[in-house]
């Protein structure tokens, strides 16, 4: 570090500042790009420029050629000559072109009689400091993002309604021909049993399987689309009995354990929907398990105004990025081998739970093991 020497020509001694230090300061500021100077003649043609900041301005061109921000104020600039000391300011403009954009600039114009020229003082400027700009931008982004979410949820509601109507119509209309197809396969098999080859019989078998699969999908679809239209009769439901019945209807094997823990009260609630929710959640846990040692726990608990149901499995778990999509109709993340994948189970659960004013979420397992935990909050009292 060298101290400025007192003999430096540019350092103001005493209180008198001569021309020399002014020239030095002017030069330093211009070289550092803080300021730039442009001179223009009476016809507003640029005659000279000084400083890095105005390096892009072409000498000999009209001042508006490179500073198009001055288009429209040419007459105001000319008027400066008539009023000594008058200024014209064009604040905070950036000039954007194909390959570059100038920084935000303040343009300050005046007539310098001594030089018989207009002077345009060009300064780098900012509207507020960087933090303020970031903040302003962030606030606006939020505003717009919120508006977009609102618009999208409206759109989604409409799409869901469409899907519902569509699903209801097609599932209903397709069921009869589907059933007819199955009967015809049966008839064919009877007729051909004596004469047909093994291949044909097997083919018919596969046809029957596919047809009944499709029948199941259609029933699922009909079920899905009729949620919310069901009459809302309330019954006293023994939830423990309900969950036990469901589990006994699911085939248990040596490598498949389903346990029921916690409190299972009797609720005055919608039985059919609650049944569907439990059944689908347990079903889902069984189907989407790819290992051999299936362990599923169903836990009940009264939690304030809600009955909390947690269904946890020791399957592969669900990545956070899939957790929203999983509740959409016909979404399956994993193709379960052999088992029927209808892809509506969780969509049904989601619709039922939200239609009764409850909630559903997916949690990770708290004990560090892999697996998913579906948590349903079922309202203790069902409002109309």
């Amino acid at each position, binding site marked *: 570090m060298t101290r400025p020497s007192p003999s430096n020509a540019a350092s103001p001694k005493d209180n008198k500042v001569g021309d020399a230090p002014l020239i030095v300061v002017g030069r330093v500021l211009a070289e550092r790009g803080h300021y730039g100077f442009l001179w223009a003649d009476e016809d507003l043609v640029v005659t000279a420029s000084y400083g890095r900041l105005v390096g892009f301005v072409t000498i000999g061109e009209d001042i*508006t050629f490179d500073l*198009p*921000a001055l*288009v*429209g*104020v040419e*007459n*105001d600039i000319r008027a400066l000559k008539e009023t000594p000391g008058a200024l*014209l*300011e*064009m*604040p*905070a*403009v*950036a*000039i*954007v*072109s*194909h390959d570059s*954009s100038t920084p*935000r600039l303040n343009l300050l114009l005046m007539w310098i009689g001594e030089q018989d020229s207009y002077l345009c003082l060009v300064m780098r400027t900012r*509207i*507020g400091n960087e933090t303020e*700009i970031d903040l*302003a*931008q962030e606030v*606006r*982004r939020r*505003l*717009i993002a919120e*508006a*977009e979410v609102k*618009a999208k949820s409206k759109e989604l509601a409409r799409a869901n309604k469409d899907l519902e109507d569509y699903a209801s119509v097609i599932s209903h209309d397709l069921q009869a021909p589907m059933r007819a197809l199955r009967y015809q396969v049966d008839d064919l098999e009877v007729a051909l049993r004596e004469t047909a080859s093994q291949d044909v019989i097997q083919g018919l078998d596969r046809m029957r399987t596919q047809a009944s699969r499709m029948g199941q999908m259609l029933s699922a679809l009909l079920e899905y689309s009729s949620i919310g239209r069901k009459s809302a009769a309330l019954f006293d439901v023994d939830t423990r009995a309900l969950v036990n019945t469901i589990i006994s209807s699911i085939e248990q094997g040596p490598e498949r354990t389903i346990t029921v823990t916690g409190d299972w009260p009797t609720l005055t609630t919608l039985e059919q929907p609650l049944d569907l929710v439990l059944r689908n959640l347990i079903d889902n846990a069984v189907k989407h398990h790819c290992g051999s040692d299936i362990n599923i726990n169903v836990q009940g608990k009264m939690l304030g105004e809600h009955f909390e149901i947690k269904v946890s499995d020791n399957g592969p778990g669900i990545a956070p990025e899939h957790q929203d999509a999983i509740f959409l109709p016909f979404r399956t993340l994993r193709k379960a081998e052999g088992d029927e994948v209808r892809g509506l189970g969780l969509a049904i659960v989601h619709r039922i739970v939200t239609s009764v004013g409850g909630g559903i979420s997916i949690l990770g397992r708290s004990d560090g093991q892999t697996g998913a935990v579906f948590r349903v909050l079922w309202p203790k009292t069902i409002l109309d």
Partner: protein
Amino acid sequence: MSARKVMLLGDIGVGKSSIVQRLVFDRFDTTYKPTIGVDIYRYDVPPSDNGNDGMSFIVWDTDGNFGNAIFRHVYIRDAAAAMIVADLSRPETFETAASLYEGFKEALPGRQATILLNKVDLVEGQNCGPLPAPLDRAGVTLLRTSAKSGTHVQKAFHDTAVAIQRRLA
């Protein structure tokens, strides 16, 4: 012929910057970078056979937060035309557009003002039909645009060039 100044006005986030970027560079960015201040672009309208001999535009992409205060600012000085942008997916921006339209007509009587209903790509099936209430008045020039797809972006500016030329003739 000297360049003409065209103002892009309208509420925040309606797509003013996106429109000028589509016009001048033929590009579109889905991320929102709010304009704090004004950005100035040059765009040359090519000559065409609908009464436009070609014209140079200086397009002022303004900050959506200026609102009607811009009419008291040096920025608006001698503007030849204004494009007043609203966002079809956000009806609240129609009110702002209507008030900017009034403000511009008052500040610069006789100058061309066009209302652009932008983001038409977002509102399927609304690319025609009745106008939103605040904008439904006689004599308003109006176009449905999309900076995303480019729909009517060039047309908006080319029509403006024709209108300016007609006024000067």
